[in-house]
């Protein structure tokens, strides 16, 4: 009996949160790929940005700003990037030179390597590194926003040549160096400035992530928390919750080739039938802001003046009546969404709101790949999705140009409009950012009228951490760059 008691005591004693000085950060999904030349999932991109440095970063207006290098547009098709001094070094001590930049970009541009980032860089015609400090990018056409494309994490040329597996052993020049990855759910890095270890721990279930935070098994987490969990955390002592406006854009998409939804009046009725303020207030707990367009108002090509469709059920019913629908002939539509529980809840709210104006919505939820496959193939009437991490306005071509129907682009609703095409092309041909911004703003006004999407909201970013952590400032795009500056001022690292 005493042996059992002793064993239990030992077990319990060994179960206190570890206090080995490591900061633990909870993630909702594991970084899939630690090689920046291939990584595309948000988790990988955010963690890789800590390990690898990039030529540019972005300011609050999503304008590119120099990071590893500053650029000069020598001609509209020739950009020269000069690496900053003092020279950066990789974590193995080797200096980072323009040869490494050249090799990284060449690798991605080589079709043999099947990098997912090649598509955004095909405007590059030639890369030349005339010396160790400078890299010349020659373009096939003028592109005033070209610097915004220089976001690849730079890896050493020598290791590229030797076929090094960065996925297993990442090596960059960023503020954090890779330490170990014991399993897919744990990734340890070390902050170079002060050798502070940080461990990223994947905990998919948001409730469990919150419980882990409360118990001190993780010290920080950001995003992927349901609003009710955020409210719960705000009521708990010892936990700091910070919200910041985000740029992830949620929208309701229409199939513009559908005979019913190709009618603008029906689309406007739906836009007026959705009470976005109520959803933001009650469902999001206020942790979102209404969207009028794909780009947030603070974006350098964004605008706050786009006409918005306020909740107007009477007006919506009137529009539906004009379109020939009413109590005797209700409009029936299908709405596809992913199987994510929160997204399904949102869909049911929209279903209920549209029911009140006389539209019967059938919700169809599928696993992500099936849902995404259906959307790309045009097998839908209504769907909801989000655009995440949008920085460059050239997304408008991919999303709304008539030549961007899948698989050529992401015009999922098959929106085909010659004036929208003209505005997109005029913006792209603008020789200055001001000129481009002008056309992109006109485009957003036009899209607001045509309504190929109903812009819903921009989700806020939410950080939650033990109250001993100081200095965590949420980045507009939700990256983890704040970890460079965060400090622990509490009693122990764990709690």
């Amino acid at each position, binding site marked *: 009996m005493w042996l059992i008691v002793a064993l239990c005591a030992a*077990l*319990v004693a*060994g*179960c*206190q*949160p570890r206090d080995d000085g490591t900061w633990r950060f909870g993630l909702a999904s594991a970084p*899939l*790929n630690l090689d920046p030349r291939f990584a*595309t999932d948000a988790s990988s991109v955010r963690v890789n940005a800590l390990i690898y440095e990039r030529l540019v970063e972005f300011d609050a207006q999503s304008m590119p700003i120099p990071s590893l290098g500053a650029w000069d547009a020598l001609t509209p098709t020739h950009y020269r990037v000069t690496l900053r001094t003092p020279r950066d070094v990789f974590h193995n001590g080797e200096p980072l030179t323009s040869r490494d930049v050249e090799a990284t970009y060449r690798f991605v541009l080589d*079709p*043999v390597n*099947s990098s*997912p980032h*090649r*598509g*955004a860089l*095909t405007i590059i015609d030639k890369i030349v590194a005339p010396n160790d400090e400078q890299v010349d990018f020659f373009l096939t056409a003028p592109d005033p926003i070209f610097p915004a494309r220089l976001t690849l994490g730079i890896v050493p040329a020598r290791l590229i040549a030797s076929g090094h*597996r960065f*996925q*297993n052993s990442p090596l960059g020049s960023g503020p954090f160096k890779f330490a170990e990855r014991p*399993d*897919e*759910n*744990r990734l340890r890095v070390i902050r170079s400035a002060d050798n502070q270890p940080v461990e990223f*721990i*994947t*905990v*998919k*279930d948001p*409730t*469990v992530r919150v*419980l*882990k935070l*409360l*118990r001190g*098994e993780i010290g920080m987490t950001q995003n992927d928390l349901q609003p009710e969990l955020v409210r719960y955390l705000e009521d708990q002592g010892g936990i700091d919750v910070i919200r910041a406006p985000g740029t992830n854009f949620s929208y309701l998409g229409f199939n513009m080739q559908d005979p019913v939804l190709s009618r603008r009046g029906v689309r406007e009725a739906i836009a007026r039938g959705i009470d976005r303020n109520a959803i933001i207030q009650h469902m999001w707990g206020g942790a979102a802001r209404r969207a009028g367009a794909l780009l947030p108002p603070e974006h350098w090509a964004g605008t706050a003046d786009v006409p918005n469709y306020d909740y107007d059920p009477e007006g919506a019913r009137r529009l539906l009546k004009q379109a020939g629908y009413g109590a005797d002939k209700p409009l029936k539509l299908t709405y596809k969404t992913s199987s994510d529980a929160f997204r399904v809840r949102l869909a049911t709210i929209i279903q209920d709101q549209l029911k009140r104006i006389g539209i019967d919505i059938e919700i169809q939820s599928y*696993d*992500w*790949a*099936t849902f*995404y*496959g*259906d959307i*790309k*193939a045009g*097998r839908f009437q209504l769907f909801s999705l989000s655009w995440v991490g949008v920085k460059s306005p050239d997304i408008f071509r*991919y999303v709304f140009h008539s030549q961007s129907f*899948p*698989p*050529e*682009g*992401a015009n999922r609703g098959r929106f085909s409009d010659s004036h929208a095409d003209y505005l997109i092309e005029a913006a792209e041909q603008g020789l200055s950012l001001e000129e481009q911004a002008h056309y992109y703003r006109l485009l957003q006004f036009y899209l607001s009228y045509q309504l190929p999407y109903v812009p819903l909201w921009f989700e806020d970013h939410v950080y939650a951490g033990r109250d001993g952590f100081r200095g965590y400032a949420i980045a507009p795009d939700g990256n983890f760059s704040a970890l460079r500056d965060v400090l622990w001022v509490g009693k122990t690292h764990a709690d």
Partner: protein
Amino acid sequence: MIGFFLTRLFSALLVVFGVTLIVFLLLHLVPGDPVEVMLGEMAQPADREALRHALGLDLPLWQQVLNSFGQLLRFDFGQSLFTKQPIVEMLAERIPATVQLALAGLAVALVLAFPLGILAALNRGSRWDYGAMTFSLLGVSIPNFWMGPLLILFFSVMLGWFPVSGKEGFASLVLPALTLGTALAAILSRMIRATLIEVLGEDYIRTARAKGMSEAVVILRHALRNALLPTITLIGLQLGTLLAGAVITEAVFSWPGLGQLTIDSIHRRDYPVVQACILLISVTYVVVNTLTDLVYGWLDPRIRLAGRAS
């Protein structure tokens, strides 16, 4: 016994082959394309085609099936489309965690189920019986995605006894094993109760008692041994399920097991990983069930004889 074994082995191989083929075909029939998932929407069509060719996804389906089976027969599982990690390595990382959790869950289930089932059967209609069956009903009714967080809230957050989640040492195994084991114990205890009640009504039990044997000997040597047969079948089936990966429990407790890998790979349309996982799961099921059949045959000679006669 050898004939019985060979028959079982042959049908097992057929099942594994059939399952693998069906899964392969279904995966390729459902919407979703790994190339799209890997390259994203902004990739050039030429890049997509190049990658599709490099992965062999542009071949006719029958050729992909043949290639895939050829690789599997050589035990060459290939590598993940996404992480580029050899699949054998991925499985080797996951299998120990899955086996550990499955065996721990089964142990918890057996420790709970036998006393509860026997107690309920011997005290039929009493408070003991109702208590045990109420526990059983709760265990069956409460889903693991609810039970897991409840256990975490009580034992981890309030009492601070065990880690919330993750796989770090023996302590982190306790709550997932309890979550899994409680549900299984509920099913098993009901089965043990029902079969034991039936056996206790048999003539040979009355004879054993009439011979003056102690109640303990009657129960343990005569009644329980005969009541075990259907229970063993159930344990075998459940163990197969547990070894296939307890997806929900693994998700709640961030347990790096086979179930999570399978589900994640299905979502990403990582075909080679899904195929390897399904093959492993079906082999596990078949092996466990074949072993169960063999044990069953060993315990009950009538089954062997019936097999021989037919």
